[in-house]
């Protein structure tokens, strides 16, 4: 029985591939991107978050904890001693107000599949399906590939949202069981990539070359992060690289948005992005898109006119 560590299952996901989809988020990621929207997805461990504004100070969490890992005082709220915590989740189960929540639960393939299949009627009508995302879904490659295979048996359209920083063998096996990859390319310069994400880009770019050779559908996603990768040189280098692939993929630019900042607070994490970084405007995205357009790549981004008609790859 394969189990995987899932941190969320989102239904009516409409930005993770064609149609109406269910996106399964798996926990754990090899990268540590400063702009990450899902910082709770990075660690492979089960984590906890505590929302002070929801807490009613009933102390049911403290009472429920079998290992004396929790304390609460009115000044700072809930304090968790992680060395004592045995991740039994009793505190989250006891909390009546969703103030204490566990992030991550272990599920079998059957359990996830049952959840995914609940929206089959919507996939049928919209041309949608299932998307595996994360974290990095292929960190849990055995689970992810088995889930993809089983979804395939049900005739579902399958997409994998990947950062590419995974063993080539995992990626290529996954390619046998998925129709579409949403593939992140963050920076063409290795040094800059290491600085921004904590990892080299070599494996990512090599994997993309290999993946493009398999015939799997690929949409490359470039997060446009001001001050990190939004310079013209990087745009040109990315466009040149993608245009040189066996089958040039479509490209979607994703504009940085500071909406994750409150999550970092809740998770008690330090803010990796400076607070003054703005969301790129449509004009700035258009400028970034120029080299892609010049190389005849199909590039879309929020706010452009090509956002209106159906996308070529959808």
């Amino acid at each position, binding site marked *: 029985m394969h189990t995987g560590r899932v941190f969320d299952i*989102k239904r*009516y996901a409409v930005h993770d591939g064609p149609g109406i989809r269910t996106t399964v988020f798996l926990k754990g990621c090899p990268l540590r991107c400063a702009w990450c929207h899902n910082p709770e997805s990075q660690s492979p461990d089960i984590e906890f978050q505590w929302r002070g504004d929801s807490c009613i100070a009933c102390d049911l969490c403290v009472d429920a904890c079998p290992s004396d890992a929790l304390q609460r005082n009115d000044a700072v709220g809930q304090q968790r001693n992680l060395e004592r915590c045995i991740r039994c989740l009793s505190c989250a189960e006891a909390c*009546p107000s969703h103030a204490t929540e566990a992030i991550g639960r272990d599920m079998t393939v059957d359990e996830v599949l049952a959840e995914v299949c609940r*929206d089959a009627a919507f996939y049928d009508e*919209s041309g949608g399906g299932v998307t595996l995302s994360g974290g990095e879904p292929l960190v849990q490659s055995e689970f992810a590939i088995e889930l993809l295979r089983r979804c395939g048996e049900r005739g579902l359209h399958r997409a994998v949202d990947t950062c590419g920083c995974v063993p080539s063998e995992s990626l290529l096996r996954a390619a046998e069981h998925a129709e579409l990859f949403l593939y992140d390319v963050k920076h063409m310069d290795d040094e800059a990539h290491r600085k921004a994400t904590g990892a080299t880009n070599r494996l990512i770019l090599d994997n993309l070359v290999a993946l493009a050779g398999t015939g799997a559908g690929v949409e490359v996603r470039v997060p446009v992060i001001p001050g990190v990768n939004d310079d013209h040189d990087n745009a040109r280098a990315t466009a040149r690289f993608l245009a040189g692939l066996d089958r040039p993929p479509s490209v979607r630019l994703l504009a940085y948005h500071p909406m994750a900042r409150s999550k970092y607070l809740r998770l008690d994490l330090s803010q990796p992005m400076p607070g003054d970084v703005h969301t790129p405007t449509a004009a700035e995205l258009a400028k970034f898109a120029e080299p892609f357009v010049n190389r005849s790549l199909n590039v879309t981004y929020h706010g452009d006119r090509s*956002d209106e008609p159906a996308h070529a790859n959808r």
Partner: protein
Amino acid sequence: MNPPTQTAETPAITERIARLRQQSFEAPVTLSSERAVLITEYYAKHHAKDSIPVTRAKALAYLYRHKTLYIGDGELIVGERGPKPKAVPTYPELTCHTAEDLRILNQRPMTRYLVDDADIEAYEQKVIPFWQGRTMRDRIFAGLSAEWNDAYEAGVFTEFMEQRAPGHTTLDGKFYDKGLNSFKRDIQQALDAIDFVADPEASAKREELSAMLIACDAVIDFARRHAELAEQLAEECDNNARRGELERIAEVCRRVPAEPPRDFHEALQMYWFMHLGTITELNGWDAMNPGHLDRHLIGFYEQGLADGSLTRESAKELLSCFWIKFNNHPAPPKVGVTAEESGTYNDFTNINLGGLLADGRDGVNELSYLMLEVMDEVHLLQPQGNIQLSRKNPDSFLKAACRVIRNGYGYPSVFNADGVVEQMVRCGKTIEDARAGGTSGCVETGAFGKEAYVLTGYFNTPKVLEVTLNNGVDPRTGKRIGPATGDPATFDTFDDLFAAFEKQLKHFVEIKVAGNQFIEQMYAKSMPAVFLSVLIDDCIQKGRDYNDGGPRYNTSFIQCVGIGTITDSLSAIKTHVYENGAIALGELVDALGNDFADHEPLRLTLANKTPRYGNDLDEADAIMQRVFDALHAEIDGRPNTRGGKYHVDMLPTTCHIYFGSVLGASADGRKASEPVSEGISPVQGADRHGPTAVVNSAAKMDQLRTCGTLLNMKFLPSVLAGEDGITHLASLVRAYFRMDGHHMQFNVCDANTLRDAQSHPERYRHLIVRVAGYSDYFCDLSVELQNEIIARTAQESV
């Protein structure tokens, strides 16, 4: 802050339409005593000279001969129920406002009706002295049982007919092919065929049919007066173009409704005289409705294009003029509890587009699209519109509707045409009659032009559970209103509790039905709808009135409210009392009685640690199904007094606010007096897994066994952006209808905009939001209702 997305100015429309639209929008809603005074004059002089049907018909004729006419500058479609646009008449024979009522209407902050001192004086001197104690309302309340009154006062149910007539009527296409003169020949034939020797109902039939003849003449006479006024205005008119229009109006009004319309313009005017006739003779619920306007008019449209007398643009202008006429007719003001249950100017005309033709073919035509454009461009409070979506209808039609939906007026709402047909066939209608039918009012299913399908009142399902938990006593008043079904502390199993609930349910449904039977007969005998009976098959052939079983189909509905609240309450009890034993039922009832005072952790546990309806959780949805089955078993198929049956509707209008206000805390964590859930939507905020989960939960109700359900979805504008947003919305609808879902409506507005509108109503006078089965101006809603609309979960997507 974003600027309001809806504005009064819409550039695409013609100068004439812009002007008429603005006038209609800005005209204050006033109350006119003219109808009340004329009807009172007639009754004072002639009461009891003739039979009741003939008296009703002659009173209409008297009213139509003497009422003030109005033809506005630039209008192409003419005729008002009141003396001028948005001047609302009253119906003292049904319910007679007191002078104090009128003063309150004149002063209240919301849905206000301006009343002149002269109108109040007319009421005090003429209307009130005559009608006091004689109105239908007075006579109905005097005749209902004590237990009915107890349940009514406790808020277990409401009663529709205590101040409006049975209504809910939609017309079919028959009068586009034949004028009232032709109807008169049919009536005369029926009169001639009466068997005065053998038929015990012969004299009743003669009176009813004679009254129909008088009513037809009254309506023809009313049109003739408009023709004369138009001719007079034409003579006085300096402007050549307008003079030509007035001469044309006169020609049209000389032709229809006596003779059938010959072109598009005459067809619209024909309908409008039918509309005015029915809403003037009585104040029926849900006003009047043209039904499948696109299919009724398509022949005239195509013929006009072919012979060159019409262009797409001129047809659109005529349609827009027609549209604006509906907005000139706000709902007549109510008194008492129904003012709270439905405080709105909306009178629920709900035009149907698309669907299936009687022979089963795709009913979408060019006018379906053109009318969606008009709906989008005119976007006033009235009329509302919907699409009847069949699997046979093209996606282009659905997407055209979705583009209007995205603009956020709350309409068109979307109905499952195939499901609607199946519902009607289940209820015994022929498949042809079912296809020619559709939905009206909010979401109710009916055979247009052939059925009286009467809403009788809302039913407060969570209140019945509350009474069950208190062993037959209403905890709000301490009064016993139901049978003693046992102290809940003694119930060993969830099934014991449910069995007690079913006993209470039976008790209250039977009280409601007994009251309905009495009221139905009051209307059958005392308040016939004579002109309406001309237009509904088979009243003429049967010689019976619309209110007396004359129609081909005669249905009574009870509208059940709060399925989300009762499901979650029962689920909470099942989970926390009977499964994990966290609390004894007796203790829980005490905590509810104290409105969870000092029990906040308990309240939150019930709210947050319970499987709740709307999340596609089978354990919760099974309870919803069980409650629905109990309601259905108790209501569906009971005979009414008009030869028809009772069926179940699941819709709230705004009654869930009132029903919540009479309900203590409930076991789903809801605090006392807060609204209950509306329609078949989940409890506000209980759905946490997005729109597909809501749809899956709702579809587990066997909606084909209802005659209408209401599902409200709220979307942020960003979710519907772009062509993908339209495609996703269309897919959501198609998937729900595949599962036999009946109806979906959409609010497209973000919470910040609504909050800003609450603080700055002056900037948002035009903001229309979906309430429940209809749309309303946000700024005209009560604060409670505004808050509730804001609280409804916005279906955010990742």
